C-alpha cells in the first residue's frame, strides 16, 4: 500500500484570531463592496454626472485592488469590465467593444513575436555572441551584459530578456568563482542585467506592454495616437543618458574585483559550440522581426502597429517557424486581460467626465502649469512603480493626468509620456519588476544594495526625465 504523509503544521493561535485572520479576505471584500455601495449612493457632487460618480467609485475600488494585489491584476480588470456597464457608466456593448482595442492586439502580437525569437534560440545566440565578441576584459564584459540587456529589451519584453540572460550571467559568475553576496563584480554583473533591462525596456513599444497600454488608453480617451518612431525618438536620449549615469553609479558603487575574464571566454565558446550553426528558423525569425520593426517605423502610422504585429505573427505560423504550443508559454494572457480592463476603466473615467473632475480636485492646487504637471506625474509614477505593477500605475494615473491636461491646453501625449516612461523605471525593490527580482535571486545582489542604489537611481531618473522633457522634447514637437 502506498504510504503517504502530510508534514502538517498546526496553527495554535486562538481560534477567534484565526477566524479573523483567515476571514479577513471576506471582510476585506465586504468592506470594499460596502465602500462601492456608499459612493454610488451619495448625492452627485456638483460638476459631476451620476455616471461620473459611479466611474470614480469603480476607479477607487480598482485602485485598492490593484495596489493591494489581493486578487490578480487581470481579475481586477475583469471586475471593472463587469462594473462599468452594471453601474451605467458606459453601455455594455461599448465596454466589450473597447476590449478589442488595438493596443491589446499589439501586446498579443509582441508577446508572440518575442516568444518566437526566444524559442528559435536567436536571442540566446545573440547574447552569447555579443558577450564572447566584446567581453575581452572585465570592464568590457560588464558593458556587454549591460548594453546587451538594454538593447535586447528594445525588441523584447524586458522580463523575457532578464529571464533569458540570467542563466548565462550566473554561469559567468560561477566560472569566475565569484562569491555570492560579497563579490563586487558579481553584484555589478547582476545589477547590469537588471538595470540594463529596466532602462532599455522604456526605449520602444516592445520593451514592455505598458507603452502600448498607455497609447491605447490615450487613443480611447482623446483620439490622439502615438506612433512607434516618434515615441522612440522622444525617449532614446533619456535612455542613453540613463544608461550612462547608471553605469557610472554602478562602477563607483562596487569594485571590479576580478583581473581576467579568460575563463568566461572558455565557457562562452563552449556554449556557442554547443548550439551549433545558425539554423534556418533563427534566420527566418530574425528576418521576420527585422521586417516587422522596419514596417513599424515606416508604415506604422498608416496601417497601425497591431496590424503589422499580427501580420508578422501570421507569417511566423505560415512559415511554420513556431507552433502554437511553443508560443502559448510566452503569451501572458493575464497581462492582456489586465490591459483590456485598464483601457475600459480609463475610457469610462474620461467619457463620464470623472477624470477631469477628479484631477481638478485632487491635483489642481499643486499642478499649476504644464511643467509642474510633468514633474508631479513623473514623480508619482516613479514612486508608485516601485511598489506596484507598472501597468497598474498607468491605469491609475493616466486618466487623471489626461484629464488635467485639458486645463492647460497641453498635448495629452506629453503627460502620457510623463506617466508611461517613469512607470517603467523601477530600480529600488525586487517586487518592482521581475528584472530586479531575478537579480536578487542570484544571491549576489542583496535587497539592501538594491534599495540603496535604486533610491539614488530613482532620484536621478526623475531629474534626467524632467530635463529631457524640458529641453529636448520641444525639439521633437512635444513642446509645452
Amino acid at each position, binding site marked *: *500500500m502506498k*504510504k503517504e504523509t502530510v508534514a502538517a503544521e*498546526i496553527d495554535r493561535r486562538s481560534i477567534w484570531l*484565526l*477566524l479573523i485572520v483567515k476571514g479577513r479576505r471576506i471582510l476585506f471584500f465586504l468592506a470594499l463592496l460596502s465602500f462601492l455601495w456608499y459612493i454610488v449612493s451619495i448625492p452627485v457632487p456638483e460638476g459631476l454626472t451620476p455616471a461620473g460618480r459611479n466611474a470614480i467609485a469603480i476607479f477607487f475600488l480598482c485602485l485598492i485592488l490593484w495596489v493591494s*494585489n489581493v486578487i*490578480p491584476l487581470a481579475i481586477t480588470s475583469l471586475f471593472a469590465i463587469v462594473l462599468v456597464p452594471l453601474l451605467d457608466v458606459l453601455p455594455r456593448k461599448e465596454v466589450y467593444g473597447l476590449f478589442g482595442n488595438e493596443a491589446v492586439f499589439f501586446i498579443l502580437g509582441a508577446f508572440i513575436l518575442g516568444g518566437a525569437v526566444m524559442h528559435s534560440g536567436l536571442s540566446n545566440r545573440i547574447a552569447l555572441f555579443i558577450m564572447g565578441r566584446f567581453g575581452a576584459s572585465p570592464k568590457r564584459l560588464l558593458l556587454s551584459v549591460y548594453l546587451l540587456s538594454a538593447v535586447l529589451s528594445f525588441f523584447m519584453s524586458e522580463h523575457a530578456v532578464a529571464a533569458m540572460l540570467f542563466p548565462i550571467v550566473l554561469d559567468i559568475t560561477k566560472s569566475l568563482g565569484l562569491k555570492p553576496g560579497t563579490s563586487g563584480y558579481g553584484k555589478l554583473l547582476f545589477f547590469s542585467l537588471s538595470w540594463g533591462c529596466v532602462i532599455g525596456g522604456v526605449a520602444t513599444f516592445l520593451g514592455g506592454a505598458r507603452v502600448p497600454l498607455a497609447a491605447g488608453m490615450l487613443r480611447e480617451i482623446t483620439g490622439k495616437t502615438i506612433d512607434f518612431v516618434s515615441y522612440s525618438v522622444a525617449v532614446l536620449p533619456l535612455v542613453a543618458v540613463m544608461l550612462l549615469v547608471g553605469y557610472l553609479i554602478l562602477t563607483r558603487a562596487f569594485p571590479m574585483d576580478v583581473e581576467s575574464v579568460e575563463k568566461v571566454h572558455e565557457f562562452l565558446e563552449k556554449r556557442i559550440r554547443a548550439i551549433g550553426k545558425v539554423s534556418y528558423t533563427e534566420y527566418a525569425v530574425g528576418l521576420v522581426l527585422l521586417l516587422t520593426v522596419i514596417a513599424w517605423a515606416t508604415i506604422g502610422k498608416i496601417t497601425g502597429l497591431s496590424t503589422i504585429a499580427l501580420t508578422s505573427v501570421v507569417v511566423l505560423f505560415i512559415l511554420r517557424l513556431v507552433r502554437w504550443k511553443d508560443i502559448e508559454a510566452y503569451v501572458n494572457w*493575464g497581462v492582456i486581460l489586465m490591459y483590456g480592463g485598464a483601457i475600459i476603466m480609463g475610457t469610462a473615467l474620461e467619457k463620464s467626465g470623472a477624470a477631469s473632475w477628479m484631477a481638478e480636485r485632487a491635483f489642481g492646487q499643486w499642478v499649476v502649469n504644464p511643467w509642474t504637471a510633468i514633474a508631479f506625474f513623473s514623480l508619482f509614477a516613479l514612486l508608485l512603480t516601485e511598489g506596484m505593477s507598472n501597468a497598474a500605475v498607468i491605469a491609475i494615473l493616466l486618466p487623471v493626468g489626461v484629464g488635467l491636461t485639458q486645463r492647460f491646453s497641453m498635448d495629452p501625449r506629453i503627460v502620457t509620456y510623463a506617466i508611461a516612461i517613469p512607470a517603467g523605471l523601477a530600480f529600488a525593490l525586487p517586487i518592482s519588476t521581475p528584472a530586479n527580482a531575478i537579480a536578487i535571486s542570484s544571491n549576489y545582489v542583496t535587497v539592501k544594495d538594491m534599495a540603496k542604489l535604486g533610491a539614488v537611481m530613482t532620484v536621478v531618473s526623475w531629474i534626467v526625465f524632467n530635463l529631457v522633457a524640458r529641453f529636448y522634447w520641444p525639439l521633437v514637437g512635444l513642446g509645452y
Partner: protein
Amino acid sequence: MLRGVRLEALDIEPLAGRAGVGIDIILPGGTPVNVPSDEEFVKDSPYILRKKGDAYAITDLKKEVAVRIVPIPSFYGRKTKTGVLFSDIAKVHGSYAVITPLPYCDFFKNNIECRYCAGNFSGAGKKEKAYSVDEVLETVDAILKEGGLNIIYLSIGFSEGEDGGILFLAPYMREIKKHFNCLIAVEALPPKKNHWIDDTYALGADSVLYNLEIFDQELFEAICPGRAKSIGRGRYIIALKYAAGVFPNGTVASHLIVGLEPPGSTCMGIDFLTGIGVVPILPIYRPKKGGALRIEPLTGEVIIPIYKHLYRAVKKNNINMNWVRDISSITTPIEGRLLTGEGQGGINLIFDQFYKSRLGLKTAWGLSTLRRKLRVKSPKEPEDL
C-alpha cells in the same frame, strides 16, 4: 456492565446487536450499553434479560427495567465487492462504527501483548492482509447509509515505526474524508514524534485516542509489557498532552480500564488526564475464563463513585464531554453525569438532544472541518498575475 445479563429468551440472539462480545442494549435514558452476556462470569449474574411481549426488560426478579435491544445493523450480513463481510471490517458500538483495517498487533508476535487484550487484534496472519481502502470505503458507505452512525472509529494495533500507525491509516483517513461527511476518531498508539500527532489531525482525524489503560506505573508495566517496553508510560502522557493542544477540546481521550488497578489509582488517573485536557473513558475489565487480573471486590459500590468522579473531574477542568460519548462498551463522562444526578434537565437536556440529532452531528462535522481548515497550515500557493 459489571455482572452481565443472562439471556433467557431464546429469540434474543438473532436480534441482538452483537459487537463481538456482549449484547448492545439501550437504557431508558437513551444510553447505549454493551452488556456482557457470553463470558464465564455472567452465569452468576443476578440479572436476566427477558422478553415481554414485543419489548425487553432486565430484571433481578425484584425490580425490572425496560430496555431496548439494538437491532443488528442491516449491513452486517452484506459483503464488499471483494466478498468480505462488512461485519468483519466494522463493528457498531453505540454511535461509533469501529473499523480495524489491519487486525494485527506486533505485541502478539513478541509475546508482549496486553494481558487483558480482548480487542480486534492478534498476532496471527500477516501484515499484508489489511483490508483495502476500497473495502473500507464500501463499508463506511454502508455504515452511513444505515443512519444514526456518523463517527467512524479507526483502530490500529502496535507496529514498529515512529508514526504510531498513522502512515498506515493515512490513506484510509484521506479517502474517507474525501468521500463522506463524517467524523473520524483514531485509536492508535502514541507516535514517537509529536509531528505525527499534527499529521493525524491534518489528515482528518476529529478525535484521537491513545489508551493508557492503566495509570499505576507498576501495574502498567506488568499488565501492558509491550506498551511499557516499546512506548513507555511517559510517552503516552507527553503525546496525550500534546494532542490535547492540537485537537479540539474534549476530543482527545484515553481508556482507563476499571478493575485492573485499585479504584484510587483510577481516580488519580482521571485527575491527571483531565488536568492535561484529556477525556478519560472507562471500560470495565471483563475477565476471560481463568483470567485473574481483576481487582476484587469490584462491585457497584466501588465503581459508581469512580464514574461520578469522572464526570466531576471533566466538568471541573472545563473539558467538553459531548464529543466522546455514546460508546456502548465504555463509560464516558456523560454517563457519569447520569449517575451523579447533576445536570439532568434544562439546557443540558436540550444540548443532549441536539448532539444526538442529525443536525447536531452535521454541525459537529461542519465545525470540526472549519477548525481544521483554520488550524492546518498548507503550503503557500504561488501568486499569479
